[in-house]
Structure formats: structure tokens, C-alpha cells
């Protein structure tokens, strides 16, 4: 999983084609979805199915027959105990396959290319990005616009994000505070925003109590996110983390001086609170969706103002 994390960090802003091709060669993925050990005589369909369902097209835009045919392209690979990937040509099915209407002696990379040629693929990725960065229910116009950029730039994630962050919808009142931060965002974000110095050894357990055990997602779809982060247990865990961060001076060193220019803490408690409000809630402590100066709202859903 560490290797997978490194791969995703390295290529997060690359083109999605590279990401999709690479993730199919990622040892953790190959093991979990049984690419490893899948052979011509009995191709395992798990990866081919999730590739289309979860990573690129979603249900309804491919058939079970497409899954069966694509699965044959992923045969012949074995991952050993050390995570080394081996390709055994004799176990690979190199005969003709028909996937999404196209026939050829397709291998793994060809399948990705065929999938990304479908118009639904760009829409799928655009919707995912907008739901993560803007709001849970993005408009069709925004989806179409980001999808267009993806198609025109050869699926460049970087270009898509650049367009996304300049969409009117990103700065709209509907997007403001419309997302729930994931535990890692919440914890790492709070530590950074407050300039806390901590060794961090207790943080994985804190994240687990908030529902996110790093490097151990519930399945290949990842953490469901959004409302799934919010329940009584995770809420208590978030409050207790905030308490720990601000009271355990031994393990979480917090110095309010770093929040102020030239390290000068104002004597007036009101000014102190205003500064905290700026740091954590972009100055909008009580206004909800309608409040806040327009200039600050540009921070959008996942800016410093995002909920909890």
C-alpha cells in the first residue's frame, strides 16, 4: 500500500491514462482484485469489473460481456510475496477480444485506452473531481465543462483541476461549506493551520477513531467520504482530537504567537478570537452559507472554511 500511495502521489496531477495503466500494475491492487494468478484457462474478472465500475465508467456503461472479454487481457501476471510482479506469457490470453465494441489482441494498456475513448469516462472523472473539491451535487454544466477539458488535454488531471478551481460554481454560495473534511484532512489541516508541533505517533489511532485507518481503506472504492464521515463516534473523536491538540502541551506544542504578525499576541481577547476565526473559519464564525465576505468565499468548499 505504501508503494501504491507513492505511485498516486507521484502521478496525481499527471494524465489519468497513466494513473489507470499504472494502478493495474500496482502489486496491492493486483493482489486485492486477483489480477495476480489470473490465467488464460480461468480469467478472474474482479479487476476488469472494478476498473470499469469504480475507476472509469460506472455501472450501465459497459456489459458483463465487456468485463469477461477485458478480464482476458489482464491474464498472465503473478505477484510474489515481496510484491514483485512477473508476467508469464504462456498464461496470458493473447487471442482476439471484443471490448466496448472494439476487437483486437488487446493487452492491459489497450483496455485502458479503449475505456478512455468512451465519452462516459471523461464525465465520470469530472463528476468525481467536482464532488470531491466543490460540492456533493455539482451541476451538469460544470461536469460537462471539466469533462471537455479532460478530453481536450488527453485526460490531464492538472488541467482539469485548474479549470475546476476557476469555475463560477466553485466560488458559489452553494459550494461554501458544503463538504465534510475527511479525517486526514481534518487532522493534518488543524495541525498545520494552528502551527502545532507534534511527533504524530498517536495520530493514526486518532484517525482510526474518526473512521479512517490509513493504508487500509475498506475496499478498492476507497472511503465513501462525505456524510459517511459523520456519526456520533466520529464526531466525538473529532471533538476529542481538538481538545487534545489544544490542551496536551507536552505532546502537542502550540504557540499562539505564530498566529500573529511578528509573533505579537494582542492583549485584547476579542482580537485573539478574531484571528482564530480567520485561521480556522475564514473569518465567518456565525453566518453559515449566506455570510462571510465575498472575497473569502473564493476559498470554496475544501478551503479553510470547510466544515469541521
Amino acid at each position, binding site marked *: 500500500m505504501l508503494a501504491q500511495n507513492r505511485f498516486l502521489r507521484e502521478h496525481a496531477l499527471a494524465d489519468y491514462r497513466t494513473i489507470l495503466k499504472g494502478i493495474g500494475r500496482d502489486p496491492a491492487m493486483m493482489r486485492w482484485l486477483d489480477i495476480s494468478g489470473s490465467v488464460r484457462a480461468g480469467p478472474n474478472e474482479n479487476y476488469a469489473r472494478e476498473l470499469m465500475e469504480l475507476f472509469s465508467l460506472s455501472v450501465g456503461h459497459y456489459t458483463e460481456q465487456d468485463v469477461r472479454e477485458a478480464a482476458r487481457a489482464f491474464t498472465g501476471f503473478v505477484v510474489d510475496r515481496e510484491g514483485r510482479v512477473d508476467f508469464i506469457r504462456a498464461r496470458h490470453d493473447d487471442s482476439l477480444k471484443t471490448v466496448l465494441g472494439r476487437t483486437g489482441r488487446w493487452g492491459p494498456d489497450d483496455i485502458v485506452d479503449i475505456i478512455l475513448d468512451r465519452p462516459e469516462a471523461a464525465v465520470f472523472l469530472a463528476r468525481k473531481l467536482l464532488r470531491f473539491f466543490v460540492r456533493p451535487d455539482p451541476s451538469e454544466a460544470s461536469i460537462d465543462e471539466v469533462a471537455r477539458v479532460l478530453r481536450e488535454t488527453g485526460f490531464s488531471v492538472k488541467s482539469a483541476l485548474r479549470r475546476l478551481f476557476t469555475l463560477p460554481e466553485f466560488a458559489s454560495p452553494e459550494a461554501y461549506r*458544503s463538504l465534510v473534511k475527511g479525517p486526514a484532512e481534518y487532522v493534518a489541516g488543524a495541525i498545520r493551520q494552528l502551527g502545532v508541533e507534534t511527533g504524530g505517533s498517536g495520530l493514526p489511532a486518532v484517525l482510526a477513531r474518526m473512521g479512517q485507518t490509513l493504508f487500509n481503506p*475498506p475496499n478498492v472504492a476507497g472511503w465513501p467520504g462525505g456524510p459517511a464521515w459523520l*456519526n*456520533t463516534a*466520529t464526531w466525538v473523536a473529532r471533538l476529542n482530537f481538538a481538545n487534545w491538540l489544544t490542551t496536551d502541551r507536552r505532546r502537542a506544542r502550540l504557540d499562539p504567537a505564530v498566529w500573529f504578525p511578528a509573533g505579537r499576541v494582542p492583549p485584547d481577547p476579542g482580537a485573539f478570537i478574531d484571528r482564530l476565526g480567520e485561521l480556522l473559519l475564514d473569518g465567518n464564525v456565525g453566518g453559515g452559507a449566506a455570510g462571510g465576505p465575498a472575497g473569502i468565499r473564493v476559498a470554496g468548499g475544501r478551503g479553510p472554511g470547510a466544515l469541521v
Partner: protein
Amino acid sequence: MLNRRGFIQSALVGVAAGIYMPHVFVRALGTALADGSRAALSAGGDRTLIVVQLAGGNDGLNTVVPYQDGRYYSARPTLAVRPETVLPLSRELGLNPALAGLGQAWADGRLAVVGGVGYDHPSLSHFEAMDIWQTADPERGRQSGWLASIVAGAVDSQGHPLGAVALGARLAPALCCPPNAAAVVEGPESFRLAADPRYPALTGARQAALDRLYRSYRPPAPYAALFESAAQGAAVGIGQLHRALEAYRPAVDYPGTPLGSGLKLFAALIEGGLGLRVGYIVQGGCDTHADQARTHEALLRALGDALGAFYADLAARGRLDRVLVLTWSEFGRRVAENGSPGHRPRYGRSHVPAGGRGEGGPSRPAARPGPAGKRQPQVRG
């Protein structure tokens, strides 16, 4: 025909109402209850359903063992449970000896085994299987979990946050997502608000300030209702839970396993009269691909011992008639062993309801390998 949730719900109602059900009657009952099952469950008043999910695909054939079936033994030369060790339930089926903790419930006629539960054309994808089991909809059109309507009737924002409780850090999709969501409790220790070690007296004031701050997040913010329900549920539920737990004196010693502590907490909530209608707990690690025999035995022992303690505790309080336990898993394991000493997932599985007023018994000759060596689902969703 049984539709969507029909099977599971009608089976539960049937067992809880004390009816011994061969599967043909399950079907008949299911038809009769197709629309009325929710009402029937709601009519249960102070009854409680405890769901134990064996996550990862429990090996049903090595849980409820067809110990007279030669095909089972020839398919599993090393992993089969030896016939002389099983705890016989009938002339065909026996429990894995690691489940000895369930023996008393069986002897009392309060344990039932529902075997061969499944749906048509399973794809072997864990993802899809979980989706289908948690929503009880093989067509995958349903968004809400199969327990959602019960939760909706059990939890409210007027002081009843613990009408449905899921143990762990995540809400099981089966409980998802009525407006007043089930409480999620990671464990009694973590389900409390920590005090400021230096200014403990200010804890209340700090809490009030936070509440005011978060109250600014309100509709039309998309998750405002959910947020309100979680924050309120925690604020009220923490006090209720700890009062119930502190007052509780179990009649038996529970094992110190997560499952044991979880069931003890459920017992305390039931005894505390907090309106617990659904308790949900997950035992993970059933995805025993390798080193199956020992891992699976340990899992079953933890399960049997915890359920055995829970059963004895409830029995001592005369509450068996009001509590039903259901264990389930999203799939079983292939009948035959594979090269490594473990199993690949396959269709078969057994669901084991226990407790209730049921006259127990295997409700059908479950877990029989079909002619092709492949288990066919015998009750379809």
C-alpha cells in the same frame, strides 16, 4: 415469491414469534408479510435485534458442518471438520466444535440455522455482494439499508439516540441512512468527551461554545440534518450509555474480546431501558484465504463464546423472549480447497438466528454441495 427484503425480515419475524419454519413456510410467511413486515417488527415493542456481521465471507460449510456428507469430506481432505468432533444438530448437520458456546441455546431449542441463503447469479465480487446483502436488493437499485426503516422508527432527536447502535467507527450500510441515524459507538472508553486536563471545570463551557459555533451550520447546507443528528445524538447518548453501563451488573463474565465487550454493552443498553431496537456489531477477519483452519477456528470460538455469554446473561434476566440475534456473512467459501490451505470465496453461507421465542432447529437441510460440487442458493432474495 419473496421480494427484496422479504426473506430476511420474514425469517426474523418468524423466528422471533416462535415458529419453527421449514423453508416452504418461510416462503409462505414471506408472501403474507411482504408488505406488513415492517409493521410486524414495529409491533415488537421493546424487542431487540442484535446483528453480528461476519465480515469477509465466513466459511459456512465449516461453521454448520454437513458431517454425514461424503462429498464434503472428499472436497476438503485437510480442511474438513472431522465428523466425530462436530456438535450434532441433526442427522445431517453439526456445529463446528469451536462454537460450543452456542450449545446451551441449541439445547434450549432457541438456536436456528437458515442455510443456503443466496441470490441468483452471484458474481463473487465482495463489493457487489456487500451491496446486495446490506440493502437486501439483488437488483442493486436500492440505496437504503435493510434495517433503515427499523432505525427510523427507533431513533429520534427527542432524547432517544440509542434506539439503534452500531459498534465500530463506521455505520454499517444496512443501517443507512434515515434522518435520525443510528448511533455509532467505537467503544465505551472513547465514547465520552475528554476534559481539559488543566481546567476540567471549563469543559462544559467549552462544549457550549463549540455547540454555538457549530449551530451556524444549518440548512440548506447539505449535511446539516445529519450533522445535527450526530452532534445531538452524541451529546445525549454519551450520558445515557455511561449511566446504563455503570449500573449494569452482568450475570456472567463476558470474554474480553471486542465481540464480548460489544455484546455486554448491548445487554447493558437493553437492561437500561434505553429503547435499543437494533444493535449491530461486525466481526472482521473472516476472509480466510490462507491458513484457514486455525484462523477460522479462532474466529468461531470468539463468536461462540461471546454469544454464549450474552445468551446466559439474557437468560438469567428472563429477556430471551425479547432479543433475537442474527449472524450473517456476505458469502461462504468454495466447497473444495485450493492449493494454499485456505478457501476462495464461494456461494454458500448459513445465517444463524438465535434467541427469541423460537423453537430452534435447522430450518432446512442446509449447506449441501450440489451435484456439480458447487453450492446453489436455495432461498433466493
